[in-house]
């Protein structure tokens, strides 16, 4: 270099001569590495220098001997693995799995080291040649040479399955060991896990549970079987958690569900003496809950349970309502219904998790069977009547509401709500007039509930009845206020009832005793004085009277009687003995009512204030009556009146039903006219459907009756048939 070029840049130039690598270089380097691999596999790696080996590998790749390195690595590893395989195959019994596990761990460690050494190759030669990387390659080699080795493959699988089986039959196994093996499968690839282990495992499990479920079902009752099934399910989930891959959980639970539950569903549900029906009858909440939880896992499981529950409920309900024994006492009848309702409510909320589909099934069943008995509306009204008369005495307001709400629930199930209305009106009238209601608030509360459910029209008349009672009180005050001279003598209390609101009764003739009729006339003139244009008619069949009586031995009693009874008894003030005919003539009460009245006065033990000759049960036209001087009662006040609401007799029932049917006719016609007015033209089937829908809140309309009404409307020129299509009707304005 000359001094003038002091500031020149320092340049490096390539070798001017070619560098030739020593051809033996590759072999020599490979041998080093090969030896190292051997040592690693022989657990003898401590003396190796990582840096040196890495450099050797690096150099080989650099000098374009990557392929030789790669193939050599594969060949060497393969050789080792084949040896390992032989060792594993030689292992006996339990040691087999342990040996496999041990060798696997060793292989992994070795592989890691080797990969580190060959890292450069991994990142360059293998990258570019698109061959499998070292680590995956190592795994594949293990898989091909060990796991899939013919002498190991099946044996491995069978060993594992055998262990699982043993654990299922109660033995304790080495879970950690199995865990490692399944993890090994997963490491080798998900498809290896699935093909070499999971699929056969699922098949074997399926077989196992098929057999076991068959055994159980022959020997256990439903509750026990379900417990066992639940236990097995929990176990399997546990098993997966401990030594299987998480993805197997759904698959194995499906197997258990299928074998233990789905395949035996019908048999379980219908099992005699222990199946679903038995559980329902005996309120076995735990068993039911278990069944619900297990069955919801399988297709149609819950549908099966629900269907059996529904048909049982319907059958049982049908028997309940059609059993003549049970219909003897209406209050008990309704109480039974309420109890059943409570029972199923509890079952559905406790065991079925308030499942809405079950709730609906229960509701539709109740609706079905309650309406099978045509007297249900009457009975529910009688139940309410009983509660409002005495049943609610002493019960807190909040509990009263609960009872009324439950009654409303039953009311909603009724298809013939108009029948209920009729009876309710009758019973309410009796309650109001006899002053026998326990709580005004409860009465009003129920009316409000009915109004909310059915609308204003349903309750307007009922409310009218209450108003009449109130107004009458005021009227009585006014009457006695303006007639102070009447404070001596018998006290008259009048309830003035507006005809439209109260149940219609034909006025019954009756001759009132003089003292009473004078008072009545005074009241009539008073009332009509202030309310011109009205007409009053005395309803003698609905009144009561309190009479003081003195008997032969001086016994004094106050008798509470009906108006008819009063008329009869007052006659004995003027005669000691009276024949039936004389009584009939004097009172002018119609024969059937008179007979009933006399019976209650003469033939009832403890209330026989008059004596009858002869002493027969029935009233004959030739009977004679005297005062019963020997009458005795430990109470001063004796009640003989018969104004309590009772279950109707057959003829009364027929009459009420007829009246209901008659009332329905105008309602149907009104509905038809309403619909046709807005639609102008409509075909037959649609009219029927619309009318039925409109009337459904009140009653179930009969299509035949609707047809008859249509014909009646045609005759009265409200509607006509279309000329061309006879099924079409037209509204005539």
């Amino acid at each position: 270099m000359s001094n003038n070029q002091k500031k020149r840049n320092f340049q490096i130039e390539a070798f001017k001569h070619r560098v030739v690598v020593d051809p033996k270089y590759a072999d020599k380097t490979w041998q080093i590495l090969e030896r190292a691999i051997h040592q690693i596999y022989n657990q003898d790696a401590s003396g190796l220098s990582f840096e040196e080996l890495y450099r050797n590998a690096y150099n080989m790749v650099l000098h374009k001997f990557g392929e030789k390195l790669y193939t050599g690595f594969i060949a060497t590893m393969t050789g080792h693995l084949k040896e390992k395989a032989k060792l594993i195959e030689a292992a006996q019994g339990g040691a087999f799995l342990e040996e496999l596990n041990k060798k696997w761990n060793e292989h992994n460690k070795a592989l890691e080291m080797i990969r580190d050494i060959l890292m450069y190759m991994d990142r360059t030669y293998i990258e570019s040649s698109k061959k499998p990387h070292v680590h995956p390659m190592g795994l594949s080699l293990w898989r091909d040479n060990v796991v899939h080795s013919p002498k190991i493959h099946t044996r491995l699988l069978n060993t594992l399955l055998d262990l699982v089986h043993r654990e299922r039959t109660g033995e304790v196994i080495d879970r950690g060991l199995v865990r490692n093996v399944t993890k090994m499968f997963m490491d080798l690839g998900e498809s290896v896990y699935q093909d070499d282990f999971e699929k056969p495992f699922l098949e074997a499990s399926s077989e196992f549970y098929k057999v076991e479920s068959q055994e159980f079902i022959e020997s256990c009752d439903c509750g026990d079987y379900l417990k066992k099934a639940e236990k097995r399910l929990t176990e399997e989930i546990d098993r997966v958690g401990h030594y299987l891959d998480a993805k197997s959980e759904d698959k194995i639970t499906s197997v258990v569900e299928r074998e233990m539950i789905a395949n035996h569903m019908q048999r379980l549900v219908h099992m005699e003496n222990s199946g679903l029906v038995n559980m329902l009858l005996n309120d076995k909440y735990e068993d039911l809950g278990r069944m619900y939880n297990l069955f919801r896992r399988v297709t149609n499981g819950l549908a099966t349970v629900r269907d059996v529950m529904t048909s049982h409920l319907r059958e049982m309900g049908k028997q309940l309502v059609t059993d003549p024994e049970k219909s003897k006492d209406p209050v008990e009848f309704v109480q039974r219904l309420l109890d059943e309702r409570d029972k199923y409510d509890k079952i559905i909320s406790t065991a079925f998790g308030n499942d809405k589909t079950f709730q609906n099934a229960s509701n539709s069943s109740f609706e079905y069977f309650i309406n099978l008995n045509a007297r249900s509306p009457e009975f529910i009204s009688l139940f309410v009547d009983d509660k409002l008369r005495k049943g609610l005495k002493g019960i807190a307001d909040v509990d009263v509401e609960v009872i009324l709400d439950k009654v409303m629930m039953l009311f909603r199930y009724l298809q013939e709500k108009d029948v209920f209305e009729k009876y309710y009106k009758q019973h309410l009238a009796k309650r109001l007039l006899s002053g026998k209601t326990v709580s005004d608030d409860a009465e009003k509360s129920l009316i409000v509930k009915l109004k909310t459910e059915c609308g204003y029209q349903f309750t307007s008349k009922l409310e009218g009845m209450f108003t009449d009672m109130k107004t009458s009180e005021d009227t009585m005050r006014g009457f006695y206020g303006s007639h102070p001279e009447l404070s001596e003598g018998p006290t008259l209390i009048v309830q003035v009832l507006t005809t439209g609101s109260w149940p219609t009764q034909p006025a019954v003739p009756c001759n009132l005793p003089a003292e009473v009729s004078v008072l009545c006339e005074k009241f009539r003139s008073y009332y009509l004085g202030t309310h011109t244009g009205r007409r009053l008619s005395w309803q003698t069949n609905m009144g009561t009277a309190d009479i003081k009586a003195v008997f032969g031995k001086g016994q004094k009693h106050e008798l509470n009687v009906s108006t008819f009874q009063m008329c009869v008894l007052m006659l004995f003030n003027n005669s000691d003995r009276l024949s039936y005919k004389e009584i009939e003539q004097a009172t002018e009460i119609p024969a059937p009512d008179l007979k009933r009245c006399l019976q209650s006065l003469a033939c009832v033990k403890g209330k026989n204030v008059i004596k009858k000759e002869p002493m027969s049960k029935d009233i004959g036209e030739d009977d004679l009556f005297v005062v019963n001087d020997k009458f005795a009662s430990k109470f001063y006040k004796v009640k003989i009146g018969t104004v309590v609401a009772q279950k109707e007799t057959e003829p009364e029932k027929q009459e009420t039903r007829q009246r209901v049917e008659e009332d329905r006719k105008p309602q149907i016609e009104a509905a038809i006219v309403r619909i046709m007015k807005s639609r102008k033209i409509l075909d037959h089937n649609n009219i029927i459907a619309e009318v039925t829908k409109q009337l459904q809140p009140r009653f179930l309309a009969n299509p035949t009756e609707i047809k008859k009404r249509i014909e009646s409307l045609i005759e009265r020129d409200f509607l006509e048939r279309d000329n061309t299509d006879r099924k079409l009707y037209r509204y005539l304005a």
Partner: protein
Amino acid sequence: MHKLSRSNRDKLQQFVAITGASDKNALQALKASDWQLEAAFDVFYSQPQPRSNGDMRRLEELYNRYKDPYSDMILAEGISVLCSDLQVEPQDIVTLVLSWHMNAATACEFSKEEFFGGLQALGVDSIGKLQEKLSFMRSELKDEQKFHEIYNFAFGWAKEKGQKSLALDTAIGMWQLLFAEREWPLVNHWCDFLQDHHNKAISKDTWAQLLEFARTVDPALSNYDAEGAWPYLIDEFVEYLYDKSVVEK
């Protein structure tokens, strides 16, 4: 004279034969109704007819022969004379057809207008001519459309004046009569059924619908549609047929 097509010429001839109108009037009526015969009749009859005096006189004479001495109507007596003149029984169905032509309001009496109108509609003015028309009138019963009209007319005609419905006995009689002309295999069962079960008068709708039923539903009830909006009475009749095993369900 315009040239007439062959069919129109036929129509013209028919028109004249039936109404007895002059060619000129006939042509007028037919043209006014676009050569529709039925419509032409309407047109013709709604016009005040310039009648030849001779026609009117003869009709007057005829009317006077039958009219009741105390009222300006032909009553039952007169009708039986008319029937014997025509040599038909009073219960012969042809009297119904005649009444239909007259548009008689009620059976067993004809008003003057009805009598005149009917005979003019038939284009007759003497007993002889009327007698000749008898077979034509009978044939009208075989025409589907005309039978339908006559049947429906019969309801209003046969019922009591001022009543809305037709008394059962009368209805049964009418049915027997009408269905003798147009066969309906179930007519006797229908009448038996009514007498056993119904015992009430027949409404107009039921009367009209029965013809539909007889026309459209076959006697074996194979095409009876329970949802077919038939009157309730007919539904009951079907039940009755099943019960009595007249028809297999």
